[in-house]
């Protein structure tokens, strides 16, 4: 038998082996390999990494780093703020937020917190710093200007543990 057929049958046999090992070993290995790559989900979706947390008594405001969309992306630059946990929020929130940490409030954010988690939200943002745009009665039409209630960890949430956050995205003004 010549070399090429031997190689062909060896490869075919190896392919069968790959098939048999897939559910037990390879699928997990490949998945872990992909997960280990230095990749991240686009920040327009994820909101970017959290920069700092502002304690507000029973709850806190997580301030994310500003997100600047890429090249032709239709969204505008924005900054994401998370009010968490929702269970500790009062029925009406009206907070002055110092986003850049200079000791001066940059925006005042006001929204109602309905008891029903599925109830629609709307937010008003008063701009106290020209870097941040004001918003009036905004819901969730765009990734760069919205208010939504997000359960980041639904799969691991237990009866008494609430991972809900109210996410507000405020567009940045053009420099």
């Amino acid at each position: 038998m010549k070399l090429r057929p031997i190689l062909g049958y060896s490869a075919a046999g190896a392919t069968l082996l790959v098939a048999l090992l897939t559910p037990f070993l390879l699928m997990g290995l490949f998945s872990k390999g992909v997960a280990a790559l230095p990749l991240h989900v686009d920040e327009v979706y994820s909101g970017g990494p959290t920069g700092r947390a502002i304690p507000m008594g029973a709850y806190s405001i997580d301030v994310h780093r500003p997100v600047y969309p890429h090249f032709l992306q239709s969204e505008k630059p924005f900054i994401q703020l998370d009010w968490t946990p929702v269970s500790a929020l009062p029925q009406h929130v009206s907070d002055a937020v110092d986003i850049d940490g200079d000791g001066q409030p940059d925006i005042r954010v006001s929204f109602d917190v309905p008891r029903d988690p599925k109830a629609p939200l709307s937010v008003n943002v008063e701009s106290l710093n020209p870097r941040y745009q004001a918003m009036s009665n905004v819901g969730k039409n765009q990734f760069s200007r919205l208010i939504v209630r997000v359960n980041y960890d639904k799969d691991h949430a237990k009866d008494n543990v609430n991972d809900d956050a109210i996410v507000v995205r405020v567009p940045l003004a053009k420099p």
Partner: protein
Amino acid sequence: MATDARILPLAVRPAPRGILRSLLLTLPMLIWSLLMMVYRPGASPDPVSRISGLLTALFMTALFFMMMRTHNTYRWRRIFFVSLGILFPIGFIHNLYVMRGSMGIPIEEMIAGRTPFCFMPIPLLILPAALTRTLVFPGSIAGGMAGMVGIWLALTLVMGKGWCSYACFFGGIEEGVAAIPPRAKIRKLDPRLRYLPWAVLLAMVLLSLALFEPAYCMWLCPFKAVSEYVAARSTIGLIQNVIFVLLFAGLVIALPFLTKKRTQCSWFCPFGAFQSIFNKISIFEVKIDQSRCKPCLICQNACPNLSLSKESVARGETLLSCMKCGACVDACPRGAVIWHIKGTEIAWKPERARLMFLYGAWALAVMFGGTIIAQGIAVILHVVV
């Protein structure tokens, strides 16, 4: 050249295998199916899930038995594939309604990284990921994307573009529709249309890079109509959903019915074009033994994916887009279209090549597609029982 004793006589189809021999050949698949569908670690203890798993294992084993007994691949594979195409939306849509009460993806689910990831966006993510390390999909890497990419990599190593015949959970819908009419109403198809998926792939890859979004999923995927779609929050969302429905109605329902071809796969699917590249690394292929070929071009007419042309038949090979469904092999009256392992002599024990391919492909079809079928059956059982 192989000796005549190893070649089937001209114009004679192989006789059915004996039942005992077919059963022996099927036995490994029965064990595998039970292992994957019923006894796998982590399987749900819910009795309905166990029953649906058992039914699926028996279904997949029975189809494999018929493949062994009749030497026919396409007809039995199609039964599996159409079942997959029908039962995937049933299970998936049911899960969506249970989880969120709608097929639309709300923006908060995207922000939380809970958009289910199918294989379609894989080619669209490569360039943005390579250039900016960013995945332009609103999902979770560890919680979905890595898993699907892992499955896709493993299955692609085994099947190449066979993915489109043994794993794709969308293609079965149009294959089922194409099987309904006895004859094609439209027979003359412009051969240049087979280059369209490459054009769609190129356009979508570039658009995804420019717009930083999975452009095909956002604008053109016909299967959004039967899976999940962008919640119509605005006029643009409404337009997107209208496009999904129109493309589904045209490419997945109307044209397959009129042409008896998988038109979405043949003329549109960018993932299919991308997957064709992996036929180059797949060790299994379909060849044409020119010493037996007339050529009558029955194989070309039988191919559901326009993967054979007059020129390719003359060269003794299929086109790069061949999905290894086996339609041409089964249709050839002279046994000239054969399964082949690269590197081996043409027509040297083609049945051995077929068996080696089928064991790998079917094992993974049971693992991947079988699980989806079992979920669909479980939903039906839950509703009915």
